[in-house]
């Protein structure tokens, strides 16, 4: 077990294709870190540089106290789990798991002991004499994990280990991996394109886009306080809604306005902008901003739950909408509605952000429609199941003004 540190790590392919740009990260011993981002964001490249499967163009990677830049993978004492499992097809499960130990010329009895122990943890004892060919996807994934844990390495590196599994199994394995990590506590770096996996498993999440680190924070902080529009749109499913709005000074406080809707900002909000972002809301007063509202912060005004929101923001924190699609999830309803063309914000990253994670929820059954619906001028609200909303029938929704985010439309960075 060890800390892993990345210092200005950069990967350049050929002359000028920058795959990873100036990556800095301190991973503490035993931490579960998730690299997440759309495909091509450099997350796998970063992982492979830590593994030693990819040269590091600039910067340093430390495992423990040692710079490992020039060490081959075998001298780094890390274990890796690959997306397609990469089990050796000509060896049975026992040989697969013991391969690394055998290469280290470990005592046969000790190898057997460790393999048996790992097999027990992963409940794959029954398959030890089978070849990978005779195993199901989930079983293969367990063997791949087993091969990693018998090593008792300094760190686990996992490259999209669950993306070849079906939705239900993925949710199951997610829990298994989390449990496994809690049990053995080895520093783990986990790469995924699935923000749900990131949110559910990570101690800290690293969001990457185009090789650049966008934000490094714990899941809750990242969800509540995204650094920029990209992170805000990428983390969370269904995605955050973005609306073109105006920030105005009113009665000594600040108000975000779009159409007839007025969302008052609390005094604490201004303080938070100052403290967290170093931004003075006054500078943006009278200017256009991008307003970000998470779907769960919009509620049908006629249901009980909306009362508190209305009380906090006043009557004007609501808007009139006409539902285009209503999806009933049982426990709640997803409401999709249009906003005016003037208010729509078109983002390059938004399409990537509404990834297939909705479909990943085995119990959900959302089947990813939210992704196609929320793009462009569509907004999503996650409202109470008690709502009587009807398709095409105008209704009032209220927005929780205490939870809104504001972004600078120029830099796309968070103001609040």
């Amino acid at each position, binding site marked *: 077990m060890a800390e892993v540190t990345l210092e200005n790590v950069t990967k350049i392919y050929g002359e000028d294709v920058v795959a990873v740009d100036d990556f800095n990260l301190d991973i503490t011993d035993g931490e579960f870190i998730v690299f997440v981002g759309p495909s091509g964001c450099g997350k796998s490249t970063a992982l492979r540089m830590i593994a030693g499967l990819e040269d590091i163009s600039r910067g340093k990677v430390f495992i423990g106290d040692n710079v490992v830049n020039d060490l081959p993978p075998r001298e780094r004492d890390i274990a890796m789990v690959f997306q397609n499992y990469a089990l050796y097809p000509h060896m049975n499960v026992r040989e697969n798991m013991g391969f690394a130990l055998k*290469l280290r010329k470990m005592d046969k009895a000790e190898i057997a002991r460790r393999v048996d122990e790992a097999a027990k943890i992963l409940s794959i004892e029954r398959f030890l004499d089978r070849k990978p060919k005779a195993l199901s996807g989930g079983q293969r994934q367990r063997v791949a994990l087993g091969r990693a844990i018998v090593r008792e390495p300094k760190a686990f590196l996992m490259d999209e280990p669950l993306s070849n599994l079906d939705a239900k199994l993925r949710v199951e394995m997610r829990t298994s991996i989390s449990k496994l990590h809690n049990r053995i506590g080895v520093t783990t770096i986990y790469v995924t394109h699935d923000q749900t996996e990131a949110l559910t498993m990570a101690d800290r999440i690293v969001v990457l886009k185009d090789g650049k680190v966008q934000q490094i924070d714990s899941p809750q902080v990242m969800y509540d306080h995204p650094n920029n529009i990209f992170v805000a749109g990428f983390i969370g499913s269904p995605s955050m809604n973005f609306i073109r709005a105006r920030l105005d000074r009113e009665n000594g406080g600040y108000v975000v306005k779009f159409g007839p809707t007025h969302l008052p900002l609390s005094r604490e909000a201004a303080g938070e902008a100052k403290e967290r972002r170093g931004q003075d809301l006054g500078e943006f007063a009278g200017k256009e901003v991008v307003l970000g509202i998470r779907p769960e912060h919009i509620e049908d005004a006629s249901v009980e739950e909306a009362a508190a929101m209305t009380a906090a923001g006043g009557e004007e924190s609501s808007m009139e909408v006409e539902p285009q699609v209503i999806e009933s999830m049982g426990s709640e309803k997803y409401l999709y509605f249009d906003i005016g063309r003037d208010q729509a914000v078109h983002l390059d990253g938004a399409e990537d952000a509404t990834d297939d994670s909705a479909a990943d929820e085995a119990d959900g059954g959302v089947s990813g429609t939210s992704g196609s619906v929320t793009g462009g001028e569509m907004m999503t609200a996650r409202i109470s199941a008690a709502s009587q909303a009807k398709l095409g029938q105008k209704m009032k929704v209220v927005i929780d003004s205490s939870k809104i985010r504001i972004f600078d439309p120029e830099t796309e960075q968070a103001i609040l």
Partner: protein
Amino acid sequence: MASATATGGSKSNLNVILFYVFLFLFVLVSLFPLLWVFKMSIVTKADLFQSPATTLVAPPISDNYGTIFSNPDFRRALVNSTIIAGVTTVICLFFGAICAYAIARLRFRFKSTVMTTILAISFFPAVAIIAPLFVLFSNVGLINTYWSVIITDVVFALPLTIWILVAFFKELPKDLEEAAKVDGATTVQAFRKVIVPLAAPGVFTTAILTFIFAWNEFLFANTFLFDATTQPVTVAIPNFATVYTVDYGAQSAAAVVVTIPLVILVLLFQRRIVSGLTAGAVKG
């Protein structure tokens, strides 16, 4: 195949019958020359020259086999063939595997040019280079040694070996090697313990094709080797002809004997060859 088509109705019954009829015809056409040679090897000289040719012979005789095996030169030739084809195969596989692995795995410029150049070597008509090679081998004293034939066989077989092996190595997922490296293997260990066993069907197929090529080679052997101590069977068989007579019976028997090792090889490794030839087509 039959079971797949044999579901329901007289139409599929017809399909099954047709399948076996054509299968039989195909096998007959393929095997006929071999069967005929075998027939020639077990009949008397008188029967051999009968016109029209007899098909059924009774009783079969083993005289011709007696003739060839009592001939020490022929026995020697079998050994020579085995040595030449065996050594050629080992050399081709060793260098071919290393070379093919590098080509399949490394990224470098002009890769396709290199591959084409390798293939171009086998484009040379053997007859065109045989005279210069003869002079060359004479000068370095290799004429009438195994090496003269082994070297030329390797030159002509290696491109084939490399091409087939490159295709096999490319099929192997790169992740497996990376997994092995992360697991603590050196590049050589990863190659030996993971890549080679996985490529085994391909390696076997290549080995057998190379062996057959070298075993059947005639032109170089006939040119560079002068006496029975080094000549392989392909050269020894025509030697059953003298100035005055040609012993067709003995030649047929020899041809049968020479074919048998290949048949045994293929039968022994049949499963591996089949899985090798279809590798990539059916991905597990």
